[in-house]
């Protein structure tokens, strides 16, 4: 009896790039554009989700809103959530013990809070650099 040929599994090839040729996120559908980054850099902050720390930070700096932190988002580095620190020019990874919410707005607020705390910490790499190279 001839053997039945098993059906070959056809692997679906992932198509990058153009909208409509891959599974878009809800945000991509809404704005009608592909998000090239692994997060939406144009996402405007939802101020109802401000953390108590960020409120105190805004007050201490004398600003009316998040100011430069509006451009800070939770991204990814080597498959781990991370925030880009422009002062250190590198990604700073979120420890795995911090549980992150699924909502990007909440994740962004956590990213902003952790980044500010990190930048003001005596452990920040810029502290050593300033001590070594500060001219005036």
């Amino acid at each position, binding site marked *: 009896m001839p053997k039945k040929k098993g059906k070959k599994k056809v692997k679906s090839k992932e198509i*990058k*790039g153009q909208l409509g040729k891959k599974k878009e996120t809800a945000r991509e559908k*809404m*704005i*009608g*554009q*592909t998000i*090239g*980054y692994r997060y939406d*850099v*144009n996402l*405007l*902050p*939802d*101020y109802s989700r401000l953390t108590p*720390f960020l409120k*105190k*930070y805004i007050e*201490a*700096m*004398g*600003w*009316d*809103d998040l*100011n*430069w932190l*509006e*451009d800070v988002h939770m*991204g990814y*580095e*080597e498959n781990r959530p991370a*925030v*880009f*620190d*422009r002062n*250190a020019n*590198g*990604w*700073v*990874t*979120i*420890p795995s*013990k*911090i549980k992150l919410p699924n909502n990007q707005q909440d994740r962004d607020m956590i990213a902003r809070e*952790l980044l500010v*705390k*990190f*930048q*003001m*910490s*005596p*452990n*920040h*790499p*810029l*502290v050593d650099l*300033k001590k070594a190279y*500060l001219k005036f």
Partner: protein
Amino acid sequence: MANLKTSEKKTKAQSMGLHSEVLTGKTQQKFFNPDEAENFYYFGTYDVDFNKRTEIDVKNMECREANKKIDELMKDGYGTIVIKNPQGKHSLGVGILNKLNLIFEGSLGYFGCGSMDGPIVRINGRVGWSCAENMMAGKVVIEKNAGSCFGAAIRGGDLICKGSVGARTGIDQKGGTIIIGGDAGAFTGFMMQRGRIIILGDVGINLGDSMYDGTIFVGGKIGSFGSDAVEAELTDSDQDWLKRKLKVAEIGENFDVSKMTKVVAGKKLWNYDALEPTEKKGAI
């Protein structure tokens, strides 16, 4: 420290002869410590008090002398400094990396308030070319008009001009928000990569030419769109944010934001998908 190592797997770029090595260790192995204290103080900055106020007359001072004087006053803890008679001097109020309330009683020349990181500046006059160039954070409010290249290459913060601005506003912008109460010239948002520009009045030709990313909101007429600038749908979240931002900017509080035009990058200039994942990260 980054190390070089030979890549075993040939990538598309390597087979084209672009390079034969990859950089490793580029990522800083830094982790957040969730228990960091709340001190609201950046290392190396001065602890100033906003209620401690002083004035300086810079009429007979060179810009270097005036900027040094501002630094000395911050060192003494002054959090509010009023500059009298700036008389259109160039490069005043540059390189302030501190929280501060700075008020100019008059107009500034070229490159005023450049490379700042944190202060709140109010200019009761006009500004020349490239005001607040490379600003990192803070807020600058200009009561009258501004020259060309307003907010060139800003990376963060709010830059507000209550009057009209010249050409190439927000050229090479990499973050932050530029708000213009009046009209803007040609090539506004030229090569912008990130951030937001709000124009309540009309804008000249080639709006958002060669923009890679970011968003431009226009309340008036648009001369013409630049290469790769396209109109997008104005969402509810955009409108909420615009209302809030205009309130902060002290202009256009009653402006009907629902009629604004939103302009984004068409992303035809994007070639990131052809890059390797590591290169893609570098491009962000």
